[in-house]
């Protein structure tokens, strides 16, 4: 580091001397430029080499927000659905939000609803059914975003996964990739179909508010906060009430972790949560393949070019032989 700094200082020194000569200013300014570049390059190298790692890993934006749904608290009042509908200016549903008949079937998020609540039988207490809220889980490394060929998805530092319909051409690979079956698509629109999904009330959290559903919940089943704090909270709850909860925070590790997490009194697969997901982000599954791409581009021409040349060589030899 010293040496590099000295060099660049030395260069600066020389610039003082021959200022009058037009010819030299150019040379010197180039030298000075090179010196500066070397200095900057050297400093940045030295400055970072200690934490340089051969294993590069993105563990998510440090201060991202998220939500924790406590499935043991939810009473199935559907206030969250209603609040979401209003906050996001979604079309009014055919069945009003206080109608409990919707629980007779299992629903999923649609182009009309970012979030829905489903009812499940409680194996511990038949009189107290379990309700499960579904919405985008806002993965740390979203599969939808890694699937999109046009980069229409963004994982914001705040945690929300956002989609830009202005870029989308409607291939629906994000829907194939999403492990939670979240994105919905406007199949009835012939010319302007788009993906619809929860945005974690991005506008509201930017203003310091919490997502509409979390605010509307009358029993406090949805806690909004920094993801790291939510994990601590979930652990604490599980530790204090080992009979009430199973020892699993869904979303802490699933597909590399999600911003929206859940704790429950019954195993998650009984509530239709996918139980067969890897702990690594899904993008890891395609990394190996994609890293082979440049290798093929560089090695194949040489390899097949050589085969071609070898055969031409043999042809020539045979021709020569025949001429003799």
């Amino acid at each position, binding site marked *: 580091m010293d040496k590099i700094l000295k060099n660049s200082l030395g260069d600066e020194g020389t610039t003082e001397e021959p200022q009058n000569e037009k010819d030299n200013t150019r040379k010197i300014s180039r030298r000075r430029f090179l010196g500066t570049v070397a200095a900057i390059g050297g400093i940045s190298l030295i400055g970072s080499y200690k934490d340089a790692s051969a294993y590069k890993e993105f563990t998510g934006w440090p201060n991202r927000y998220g939500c924790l749904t406590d499935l043991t608290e939810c009473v199935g009042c559907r206030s969250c659905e209603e609040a979401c509908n209003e906050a996001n200016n979604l079309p009014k549903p055919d069945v009003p939000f206080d109608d409990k008949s919707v629980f007779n079937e299992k629903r*999923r*998020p*649609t182009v009309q609803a970012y979030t829905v609540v489903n009812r499940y039988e409680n194996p511990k207490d038949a009189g107290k059914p379990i309700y499960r809220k579904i919405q985008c889980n806002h993965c740390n490394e979203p*599969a939808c*975003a*890694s*699937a*999109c*060929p*046009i*980069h*229409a998805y963004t994982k914001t530092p705040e945690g929300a996964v956002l989609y830009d319909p202005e*870029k*989308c*051409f*409607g*291939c*629906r*690979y994000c*829907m*194939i*990739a999403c*492990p939670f*079956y979240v*994105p*919905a*698509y*406007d*199949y*009835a*629109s*012939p*010319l*302007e*179909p*788009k993906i619809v999904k929860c945005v974690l009330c991005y506008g509201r959290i930017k203003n310091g508010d919490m997502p509409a559903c979390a605010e509307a919940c009358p029993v406090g089943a949805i806690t909004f906060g920094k993801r790291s704090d939510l994990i601590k909270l979930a652990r604490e709850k599980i530790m204090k009430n080992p009979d009430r909860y199973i020892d699993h925070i869904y979303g802490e590790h699933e597909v590399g972790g999600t911003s929206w997490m859940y704790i429950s009194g019954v195993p998650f697969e009984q509530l239709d949560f*996918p139980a*067969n*997901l*890897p702990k690594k982000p*899904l*993008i890891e*599954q*395609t990394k*190996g*393949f*994609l890293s082979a*791409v440049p290798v*093929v*581009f560089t090695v*194949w*021409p040489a390899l*097949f*070019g050589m*085969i*071609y040349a070898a*055969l031409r060589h043999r*042809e020539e030899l045979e021709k020569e032989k025949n001429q003799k």
Partner: protein
Amino acid sequence: MGNDTLTRTENFRSWFMDKLLLGMSWPEYSRNLITPFNIAAMLILSIGIPVIALRFIHGLAAVTHASDEYPWGLILGWGLFGGVPLSATGFVMATAYYIFGFKRYKPLVRLGVLTGFMGYFFAVVYLLTDIGRPWRIYYPMIVGFGTASVLFLVAWHVATYLTVQFLEFSPAILEWLKSRRVRKWATMITIAMTIAGIILSTLHQSALGALFLLAPGKLHPLWYSSYIPVFFLSSSIYAALAMVIVVSTLAARFLRKATDDTFLGSLDKLTIGLGKGTCVGIYVYFALKVIGIAHDNNWALLGTPYGEWFLVEMLGFVLLPALVLTYGVKKESTGIVRFGAFYAVLGILVNRINVSIVAFNWNLPHHLSHIVPPWQEVVIVLTLVTIHILIFRWILNRMPVLREHPDYKESH
């Protein structure tokens, strides 16, 4: 002056008759158009084109069962995932002929390249029918670069490879148009284009499989494998060889007028040779698939209902065609080899439909009732197949593909 116009009109008339009407006059040509095949084709188009129009008037919801759980259906399962491996013919035949020096296969090289070009072109047509805003098809090239996406790679490679294949086929078009000088330029880039074709095909054939790597929770573990890109690439190679047998068989049977003696005379021998190649290709693929099961230790799953269907695919649609082909090659029977090739092509379609439709979302309730397409979707596929065949036939009848152009004999 008047004379000049007259000669020009006469020149155009004879050019038109020669190039487009196969040397016939209008009345003669239109009489020739009335064949049972053409009547059937017109019937299909008269139903199918309005159905395709419906997709652009009322959306995909009106013509497919596509849903939020099932984003991709028969249009892509057949047209993209089934169509692309069967279009590897261009790269496989060009590589065999230009790079590896299988010079005897010359009569089939152009047919392979044209089959490939048309296949890719139509894969794009199926895609344009299916995606939401087809006029944005170029967006991955200009608007946003999803470099972490396998589909980004597929988009770029299919677009580039379509261009490469057009250039590879262009000598035939230029011979047809009698453009000697441009043709010479077009042939100078053959080797470069062939190697470009190998690179692009290696990558996007495997990429179509790699697309599913993102969905380990959705694709059944017997079909999901970290080897899936290799499975797709390896099967596309034998698919291509079998497809050349299929297309050349059909051409020799139905387009005899467009062929020449070199083509017809060498076809039997070349069919046996291609059959041999297909055999090797299938056995390699079969071995890879077995390694795939062993790698993930999925043996126990073979006893489940999906495992049984997997065995039907592996034994009935991969191994059995290979055995048929082996027998045909041993007996030197072109008939058996041809049957085996049709069978192998069917096997490829079964595999791609299995991956993209049958084994996808296998763990959702009522899955099997979702995979049956509505009649409209089937009609769309049939319509596009018909248009594909009509254009293919139009080209084969006019351009020197199944025959050598007399002016350019021995010049490749």
